[in-house]
């Protein structure tokens, strides 16, 4: 059957058809849908793990027991899971083990632009890279065959434009390999020095065998066209090059990006007049070519920054640009914003108002850094807010204890905030940690986590109690506030900052986009009472704007009635009482 699927759904289909039994992942754009779609197949056990390291180790355990297993993560997630990956390279597998990792060239939703191919090289494991949804499915299956044939975990590298692009996929049947019985094998699986030292030669021999495979496998294919231009490309770049040149160039399409073939590249180079490597991010293939003595043009012509496209590649080759029309008037940018009714807004307003230094973390709340709230001072990686605050406080020698906090989401806290909090308790800083508990993993599109009380299927699960957890990690002062209540929130922040010991404030209110959260009636501005003081504008709420009359107005199609602006208005001009504004149809209220 032919279906239009995003690349991530096609990977999930590949996992299903390959007979995968266990999938454990942590969400992260652009990898999240792999696991979400995998969870729609009842034959696969799927779960959200607290972080990528736990996910990969869970997949390892399943492989050890003899079944095919997978995990999925974004590029920076592989940093977290790097520890098990490097030694899994030594142990190899029992059941096939595939690690899906999604890079984000162009940083659509990421904090950096790292190239995960370096991990494949450093850990000495094979890595496949598909170029459309059909290949996503086929390569996911092939990755298991390679994993088992060569006794290695196999990486499947995705990029945003493959992961989130839909194309046609032909679906097939699920075939589950025969279950292996568990046999103890300490020489292979106990990586103490005496055993590991014997496994390292195996890893080197395996790489040599994988290179042989790369020379002959159709996963790396040559498409001969005009021989004036030869191009080596992978993934989305292959598609862009085909778009630009069609038969007007010869292409070596690399499907296995590690290890790379040697002879195949030399043979291809010999057939073309000039050879180019078109690759996003780092010059990985280019370096390989230069190492094996093949002359190529690479990063001197193609930037290491951002995403490519047919346009950028045509430009690099000096081809004429297509005719186009643009407006001369400047169009204001439209950055992402915290939603109307976002529970983080009330807390950020209080922090901003009191000029508190705030170490931030990874999640929707990173948007609190934008104007007008500008509430954040740093965002580094998952969990760094808490550990960073500890270091900041130690360095400040007491001067930061009463004016500096950190903010971290519920899911991020479970991911890698707990160890930082343990450090605060153990090594005694007087930090105030704010957990923005919106009862979901928000930015990636609403995934459950250990604090929500539900699992990936939406079935009830053990709900970890954040208050008890923080207490048990050695924090005595733990309190819960509702960020919709500004007075209560401000009181809590001031009191905990004043305290002479470490504390945790749990700012608790479910994400307003959750299905079970029913929006309240929108609030209205009474234009007779509004005195244009613009205090409500300090919230950065997308529902509030200043109208042509200079008075505040609320877009009733967006407002969810959270009431935070109502608490701010010193003239009582905002309320649920309908006024003249309410009589206008919403369309006319918008932006006028």
């Amino acid at each position, binding site marked *: 059957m032919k279906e239009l699927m995003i690349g991530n759904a096609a990977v999930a289909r590949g996992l299903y058809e390959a007979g995968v039994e266990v999938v454990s992942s942590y969400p992260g754009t652009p990898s999240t849908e792999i696991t979400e779609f995998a969870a729609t197949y009842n034959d696969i056990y799927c779960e959200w793990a607290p972080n990528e390291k736990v996910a990969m180790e869970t997949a390892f355990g399943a492989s050890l027991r003899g079944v095919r297993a997978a995990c999925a993560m974004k590029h920076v997630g592989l940093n977290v899971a790097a520890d098990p990956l490097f030694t899994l390279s030594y142990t190899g597998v029992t059941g096939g083990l595939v690690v899906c990792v999604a890079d984000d060239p162009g940083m659509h939703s990421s904090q950096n632009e790292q190239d995960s191919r370096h991990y494949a090289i450093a850990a000495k494991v094979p890595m496949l890279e598909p170029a*459309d949804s059909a290949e996503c499915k086929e390569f996911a299956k092939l990755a298991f065959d390679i994993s088992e044939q060569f006794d290695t975990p196999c990486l499947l590298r995705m990029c945003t434009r493959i992961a989130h692009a*839909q194309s046609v996929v032909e679906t097939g049947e699920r075939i589950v390999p025969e279950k292996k019985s568990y046999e103890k094998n300490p020489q292979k699986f106990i990586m103490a020095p005496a055993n590991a030292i014997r496994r390292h030669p195996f890893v080197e021999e395996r790489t040599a065998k994988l290179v042989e495979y790369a020379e002959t496998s159709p996963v790396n294919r040559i498409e001969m066209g005009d021989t004036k231009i030869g191009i080596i490309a992978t993934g989305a770049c292959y598609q*862009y090059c085909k778009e630009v040149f069609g038969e007007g160039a010869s292409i070596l399409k690399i499907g296995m990006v590690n290890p790379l073939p040697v002879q195949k590249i030399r043979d291809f180079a010999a057939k073309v007049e000039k050879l180019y490597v078109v690759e996003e991010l780092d010059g990985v293939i280019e370096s390989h070519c230069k190492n094996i003595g093949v002359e190529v043009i690479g990063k001197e012509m193609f930037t290491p920054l951002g995403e490519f496209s047919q346009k950028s590649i045509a430009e690099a080759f000096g081809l004429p640009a297509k005719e186009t*029309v643009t407006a001369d008037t400047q169009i204001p940018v*439209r950055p992402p914003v915290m939603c109307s009714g976002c529970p983080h807004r009330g807390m950020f307003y209080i922090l901003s108002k009191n000029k508190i230094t705030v170490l931030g973390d990874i999640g929707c709340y990173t948007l609190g850094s934008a104007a007008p709230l500008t509430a954040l001072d740093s965002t580094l990686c998952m969990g760094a807010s808490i550990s960073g605050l500890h270091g900041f406080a130690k360095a400040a020698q007491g001067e930061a204890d009463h004016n500096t906090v950190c903010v971290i989401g519920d899911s991020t806290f479970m991911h890698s905030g707990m160890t930082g909090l343990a450090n605060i308790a153990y090594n005694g800083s007087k930090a105030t940690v704010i957990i923005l508990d919106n009862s979901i993993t928000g930015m990636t599109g609403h995934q459950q986590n250990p604090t929500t009380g539900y699992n990936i299927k939406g079935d009830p699960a053990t709900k970890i109690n954040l208050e008890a957890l923080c207490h048990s990690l050695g924090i005595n002062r733990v309190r819960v506030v509702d960020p919709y209540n500004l007075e209560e929130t401000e009181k809590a922040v001031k009191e905990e900052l004043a305290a002479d010991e470490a504390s945790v404030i749990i700012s608790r209110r479910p994400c307003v986009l959750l299905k079970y959260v029913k929006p309240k009636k929108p609030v209205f501005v009474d234009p007779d009472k509004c005195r244009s003081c613009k205090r409500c504008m300090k919230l950065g709420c*997308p529902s509030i704007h200043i109208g042509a009359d200079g008075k505040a107005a609320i877009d009733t199609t967006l407002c969810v009635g959270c009431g935070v602006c109502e608490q701010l208005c010193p003239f009582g001009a905002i309320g649920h009482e309908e006024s003249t504004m309410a009589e206008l149809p919403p369309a006319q209220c918008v932006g006028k």
Partner: protein
Amino acid sequence: METKGIVICGVGGQGSLLASKLLGKVLVNEGYDIKVSEVHGMSQRGGSVITYVRYGEKVYSPVVQSGEADFVISFERIEAARYAHLLRKGGIIITNTQRIDPMPVIIGAAEYPENILDELTAKGVQIEAMDALSLAQQAGSVKAVNIVLMGQLAKHFHIGYEKWIAAIEQTVKPQFVEMNKKAFELGYHFGE
């Protein structure tokens, strides 16, 4: 045939993913090769969002670049102008006239360019502007702006009306089928 390009743009949360899903369904049913490129994650939160649809005999790239789009479908006025450069010569903008202020305008750091569509028209761009929000409300939900615009787009295709309706039935949840059919109809007959 040469590969065709359609751009669907708007403000995160306005339902561009459903519009591209419907369009994809129709084009797959017609037997075209097709690629649709979306961006998920951070930009969904009220930011400017764009989806590319390309179809033809054999489609390689999943993205539409400057001068390659036959249609720009926009859910908001200035978003239409933001992506107008993607239109090829003779291409058409179909846009909702709704104004949604971006944060720089809300906080007074930038002006909303009220007459941006007139400026593009003066430059020879063909624009079909409609109050899709009111039509969506008429159909039963402000969320149906996406399907109203799809109705207007459908007029430019030689694909039977009933095939679009069939695709709606295959794409949206059963409880929303009637409302979306109504929205599609209102968009389709707009301006007649």
